[in-house]
C-alpha cells in the first residue's frame, strides 16, 4: 500500500483557499460597521406628505359594485320561467338602527396595541398613555352598548349614543396617530 503514489494539488487550490480566508477577514469587519439612526424629522415629513395626498375613494368602483348587486338582485326576484302564483313578503329593517358589520375603530385600536408592543418609547409618553386609557374606556362603553343594541334594534337613542362614542373614539385615534 505504501507504494501507492501521492498526488500534489495545484497551486490554484491554495490561492482559492487564501482568497476565501481574505474575504472572511473583510466580511467580519463589515459585520462590525456602525449603523446610523435617522432623525424623527424624517418620519414627520413622511407623515405630513402622506396626509397631504390621501388616497381618493374610487367612486366609480363602488358604483359598479352597487350596480352589479342590483342587477343580480333584480334577476333573482324576476323569474319569468316560474309560475306567477308565488307571492313574496318582506320585513323591512331600519338600517339606521342596525350595527355596522365592520368596525374600523376596533381595527385601529388593535393596530395601536401591536404598534406599542414594538415601539414602547412613544407609547410611554404620558399624553399618549392618557389617550390610550381614554380609548380603552370608550371601547368598553362601545362593547356594552353594542350588546344592548343587539341584532334587531328598534331604539334610535341607543344608536345615537353609539354614534357619539364612535366619533369620540375616532377623534382620539386621530390624536394618537398625530403623535407617532
Amino acid at each position, binding site marked *: 500500500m505504501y507504494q501507492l503514489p501521492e498526488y500534489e494539488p495545484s497551486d490554484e487550490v491554495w*490561492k482559492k483557499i*487564501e*482568497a476565501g480566508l*481574505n474575504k472572511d*477577514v*473583510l*466580511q*467580519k*469587519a*463589515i459585520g*462590525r*460597521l*456602525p*449603523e*446610523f*439612526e*435617522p*432623525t424623527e*424629522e*424624517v*418620519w414627520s*415629513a*413622511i*407623515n405630513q*406628505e*402622506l396626509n397631504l*395626498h*390621501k*388616497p381618493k375613494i374610487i367612486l366609480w368602483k363602488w358604483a359598479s359594485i352597487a350596480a352589479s348587486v342590483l342587477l343580480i338582485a333584480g334577476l333573482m326576484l324576476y323569474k319569468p320561467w316560474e309560475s306567477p302564483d308565488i307571492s313574496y313578503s318582506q320585513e323591512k329593517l331600519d338600517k339606521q338602527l342596525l350595527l355596522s358589520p365592520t368596525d374600523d375603530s376596533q*381595527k*385601529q385600536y388593535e*393596530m*395601536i396595541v*401591536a*404598534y406599542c*408592543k*414594538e*415601539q414602547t418609547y412613544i407609547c410611554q409618553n404620558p399624553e399618549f398613555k392618557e389617550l390610550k386609557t381614554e380609548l380603552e374606556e370608550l371601547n368598553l362603553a362601545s362593547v356594552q352598548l353594542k350588546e344592548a343594541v343587539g341584532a334587531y334594534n328598534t331604539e334610535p337613542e341607543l344608536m345615537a349614543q353609539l354614534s357619539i362614542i364612535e366619533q369620540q373614539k375616532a377623534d382620539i385615534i386621530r390624536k394618537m*396617530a398625530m403623535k*407617532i
Partner: protein
Amino acid sequence: MTEAELIKACLENNRFAQRTLYDRYKRAMYTLAYRLTNDFDDANDVLQDAFLDVFRKLENFRGEATLGAWIRAIVVRKAYRKLEKPKMWQIIGEIPEETSVDWGDSINAEYLEKAIQVLPEGFRTVFILIEIEGYTHKETAEMLGVSEGTSKSQLFYAKKKLREMLKN
C-alpha cells in the same frame, strides 16, 4: 405583527402600520443611504423619498423578494440619483487575473468605515452594494446602468484602494 399583516394594514393606509414598517427598516435603510450618498442630509432626503414611494407603491410589491430587499432596491435607486454620475466612473485599466486582496489578519471596523467614506464615488457605490449589501455584479450592473465588467473593475480597485488606506 407578521409582515403580511403589516403590508395589508399599510395598504389600507393605516398610519400606525406605516410607522411600524418604517421603524422596522429605518436604521438599515438610513445607513445604506448614508453610505451611498456620504452625506447625512442627503440620506434623510433619500429615506423620506424612498418610504413615500414604498407606501404609495406597496400594491406593486408581489412578494417575489423579501419586503426588505424591495425597500432596499428603492433606497439604492433614490440614493444613486443623488450622486454626480458623469464624474462617477473613473476610467481604470484592466483587472489583473489575481483579484484577491490580502487584508492581513484583521481589519479595524472604525478605520474601514472612514476609508469607505473617502473612496471615489464609483468605487464606493460598487463596494457597498456588493460587499456590504450582498448584491451580485449582474444585479449591481443593472441597478447602476453599467456593464458587469465595470462593476468588477470598480470593485477590484475599490478593495485595492481600501487596502492601501488601511495599511497606512
